[in-house]
């Protein structure tokens, strides 16, 4: 099967795509609409729009920006950041998003996941899980763009999110985010074996070898940001060199 997805992640702060190291020390890298169009044309399988300050500063996501991105691409748009309620989801879906990813507010109020799945269907509700390793075999999930500890074990949370009816999980390793250093095979393997849902991984992906190992471990997709924004990798090239990936793309 060739359904592994290459998903560019646009971390957005006040109208700009930014990129930090371990989610801190942010720097501007471009215009979200332009980058989304470029990645769509390059053959991305989906675009992940992640408003990284919405929850942190308790601000509202930028509906106009979501609209402008969605009206220019013909692939799924996944939106995350500061989504608190079914009304927020209605508004974001109306703006053209196809899926939403919940994080901070799903941790605070897990039943938001089940309520959302009942209305929008599980396939539209994704949970973003940011995590950090604290001991051997203990990874804790974090909220508010990797700032707040939660005392929740990632493995328990993966199970809980599944039982509440989420349709997909996105894992982001805060330890590896933005530093171009890939996570070990063992934790990836463990997370995959504990998760019954489609599973996407992001954090430190910097080579085709990293992506290939996710494919080998039966992950469903890779979130890529830094290496794409700084043109160290490009999607056309990734697709040329890896198997099990959709290749007959005509988006230009």
């Amino acid at each position, binding site marked *: *099967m*060739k*359904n*592994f*997805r290459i998903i560019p992640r646009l971390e957005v702060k006040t109208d700009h795509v930014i990129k930090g190291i371990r989610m801190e020390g942010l720097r501007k890298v471009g215009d979200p609409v332009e980058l989304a169009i470029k990645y*769509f044309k390059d053959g991305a*399988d989906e675009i992940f729009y992640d408003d990284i300050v919405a929850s942190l500063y308790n601000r509202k996501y930028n509906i106009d920006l979501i*609209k402008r991105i*969605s*009206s220019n691409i*013909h*692939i*799924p*748009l996944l939106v995350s950041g500061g989504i608190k309620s079914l009304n927020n*989801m*209605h*508004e974001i*879906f*109306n*703006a*053209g*998003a*196809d*899926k939403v990813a919940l994080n901070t507010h799903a941790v605070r109020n897990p039943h938001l996941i089940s309520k959302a*799945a*009942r*209305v*929008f*269907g*599980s*396939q*539209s509700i994704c949970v973003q899980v940011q995590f950090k390793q604290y001991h051997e075999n203990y990874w804790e999930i974090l909220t508010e763009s990797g700032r707040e500890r939660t005392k929740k074990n990632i493995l328990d949370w993966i199970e809980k999110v599944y039982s509440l009816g989420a*349709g*997909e999980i996105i894992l982001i390793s805060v330890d590896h985010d933005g530093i171009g250093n890939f996570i070990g095979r063992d934790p990836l393997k463990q997370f995959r074996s504990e*998760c*019954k*849902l*489609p*599973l996407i991984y992001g954090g430190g992906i910097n080579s085709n070898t990293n992506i290939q190992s996710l494919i080998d471990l039966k992950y*469903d*997709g890779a979130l890529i940001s830094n290496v794409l924004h700084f043109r160290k990798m490009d999607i056309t090239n990734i697709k040329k060199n890896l198997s099990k990936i*959709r290749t*007959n*793309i*005509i*988006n230009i």
Partner: protein
Amino acid sequence: MTQRVGIINYNIGNIGSVKRSLEFFDTNYLMVNNAKDLKKCDKIILPGVGSFDFSMKMLKKKKLDFAIKDFFKEGKDILAICLGLQLLLTESEEFGKKKGLNILSGKVENLKKFSIDSPIPHIGWCMVKKNKNSIVNDSFETNLYNKYYYFAHGLICNFKKKYKFTKFIYGNKSFVASVRHKNLIGTQFHPELSGLLGLDIYKFFLDK
């Protein structure tokens, strides 16, 4: 006079991508909220968003259930996408047994029943294939063969009658990817999210 296309509104919301695809072809469209709106339409789209139960309740509340059946009987074109297609079947087992519009004879079943070795829901791009027994009458089916389209669903259509359909394979089992029946086109995948190849399906539907 230019044709008018209706988008059936279940009040769920993620139909931005359907609108965008229609706008791509400068289509004159409207949101259909009741039987009166439906009368103004030459063709309709049942978008693939939401859950079966919620959407079916909304159709009944808006008195669109019988109106859509009549629309089909009048021979007007319908494009039904993912959940929109599933609503046309006899019944569904999403969140308990629920009755559908019964335009197509069959049952919407949970992928979990098929003991497949891949994650459920099925989310991602998948190749559409020829179904051996299907008789092809036009380019619609042949254009789909061996190309990738975007799927996002936990339930599938299991037909009780022999319709013309294409298939896709997930977890070593094969399921219905698209179906043609009279004036109806149904797709389990999302043409509006399937890049430029998906837009070809909109074009086919709009040019009919």
